[in-house]
């Protein structure tokens, strides 16, 4: 089983530097009992086998980057972590996704309630067009019928955490669509945070944004990782090295995508175990 996070972090000033190897695997698992883990995960679209036997642990309160060339199944993998995969009509899966130690695919799990704990930010900024900025932030609370009274407080807190509060505090009733692309994406992050997820999945959240906005989002991700677990799919190697604490490298050689290697980001970029990882992070293919 690939285990990322057999190392504990002591310093996280810029989210990358960390102390190496301190705890044994077993105690690390016990300590991380609230984390996210996949066991023997497979995915199919129809008869097309797209992911094979993925075993991966996501350390809590850190950023794990999923990297790999197009078509290696990393986005599919991400969507299996909150059961969005099952909305595609021909999609099938096998294996387990353990959250807090229990399988989110077990029949007695309410998928909608589970997704409250696992937020998601998509590639393209997609605030709800018919809603104001404020309504967008509160959309999840309304959707899930959560009983909360301190709406204004939540709006301010979430927008602040997403790094957008200062820019929009005077126009909370403007349409979400009136913001710039980068602001819209941060609004989408704020929207996911409002239901207080413990895990946030991000599917190439910066690929549609300009470099300035990308930097803002990356700062936001660093701050978020102090409290929640972030999993981010990215095509951009610089971004992976800047933003993630751990990296998982996926690859498909024509067949189903497999997990080649997962480790601390610094190790993945400087001294990976597998030569294919080295070739990929050095830009020799992909």
């Amino acid at each position, binding site marked *: 089983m690939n285990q990322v996070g057999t190392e504990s972090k002591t310093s996280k000033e810029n989210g990358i530097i960390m102390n190496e190897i301190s705890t044994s695997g077993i105690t690390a698992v016990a300590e991380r009992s609230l984390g996210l883990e996949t066991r023997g995960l497979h995915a199919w679209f129809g008869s097309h086998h797209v992911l094979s036997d993925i075993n991966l642990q996501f350390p809590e309160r850190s950023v794990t980057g999923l990297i790999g060339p197009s078509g290696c199944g990393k986005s599919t993998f991400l969507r299996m972590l909150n059961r969005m995969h099952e909305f595609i009509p021909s999609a099938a899966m096998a294996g387990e996704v353990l959250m807090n130690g229990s399988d989110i695919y077990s029949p007695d799990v309410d998928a909608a309630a589970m997704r*409250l704990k696992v937020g998601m930010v*998509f590639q393209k900024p997609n605030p709800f*067009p018919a809603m104001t900025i404020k309504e967008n932030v509160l959309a*999840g609370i309304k959707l*899930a019928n959560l009983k909360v009274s301190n709406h204004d407080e939540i709006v301010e807190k979430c927008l602040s955490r997403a790094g957008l509060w200062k820019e929009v505090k005077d126009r909370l009733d403007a349409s979400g669509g009136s913001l710039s692309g980068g602001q819209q994406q941060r609004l989408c992050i704020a929207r996911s945070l409002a239901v207080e997820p413990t895990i946030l999945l991000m599917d190439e959240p910066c690929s549609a944004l300009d470099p300035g906005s990308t930097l803002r989002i990356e700062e936001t991700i660093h701050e978020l990782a102090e409290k929640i677990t972030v999993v981010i799919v990215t095509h951009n190697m610089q971004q992976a090295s800047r933003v993630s604490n751990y990296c998982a490298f996926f690859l498909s050689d024509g067949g189903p995508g497999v997990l080649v290697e997962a480790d601390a980001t610094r190790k993945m970029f400087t001294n990976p175990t597998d030569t294919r990882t080295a070739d990929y992070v050095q830009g020799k293919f992909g």
Partner: protein
Amino acid sequence: MHVVYSLGDRIFRRIVTAGAVTSLLVLALIGLFLFARGVEIFRDMGTKFVTGTNWTAGSEDGVLPAEFSIGPMLAGTIVTSLIALFFAVPLSIAGALYIEFFAPSKIKSTLVSMLDLAAAIPSLFFGLWGVQVFSSMGERWAALTSNYLGWFPLFKNELDIFGRSPFIAGLVLAAMIVPIITSVSREVYSRTPRELVDSCYALGGTRWGAIRAVVLPYGRSGVVGGAMLGLGRALGETVAVYLLLNLVFKYNFNILESEGGNIASLIATKFGEATPYELKALLAAGFVLFLLTLTVNMAATAVVQRTAKAQS
């Protein structure tokens, strides 16, 4: 800047322009024809033509003067159409949502093609079905409504006869326009951006939550457009109403009572035996219906544009 088009482009442009102009021209000519033939009536009757309740051809010797007015028919047109919309719109929205979001994918395409087929059924069959099959059931519903809601003026019925009422005609019209409204609604719902629906699910929303938060607001203008198409059909419906309603020249807003009519069925009823002067009155009635339909369509366009603007 002067743009130079190639010969092929110029010819193509002429052809499509001609097509666009022709359809507008035909519309204008129909309106003009109806107005020209009916203008004498408008002059003779004034505004009473659209408010009065008397339709008499008069005697040939002129002792009994001819008098034409379509008040009850105009009201009947609007009442039956509104009843039809009242039942058809919620039903269509529900049907469209079912097909798009709940139907098993195996039967979805069958349902869609059946729906389009149903939209093309001639209204005559709806009329016949209404008379032969639905009327008896509709009468029972009407009797029940009257029993429990009879205190409300709209549902008052003192005669205890429930057949051939605007209520039943409206229900048959509803059945007639459900397919077209469902078809249009389903089409716009299917165009809801996938990523918006996905974000609802990702936020812990249920399917109903996603529909309420994203699909319904997104499709609103399209549904209004579909409803207006249906309303257009209901307003102009001739045969079904002709078969289902007794033509009575009295304002009837007790929709469960057996009196009514609409402009189109009035024209169909009177046309065969009309005197030359009465014929003009019928064409004038046609002009009023023409204006009504045009107004409804323009209002609908305005609504659609306004919601579309609010969304962008």
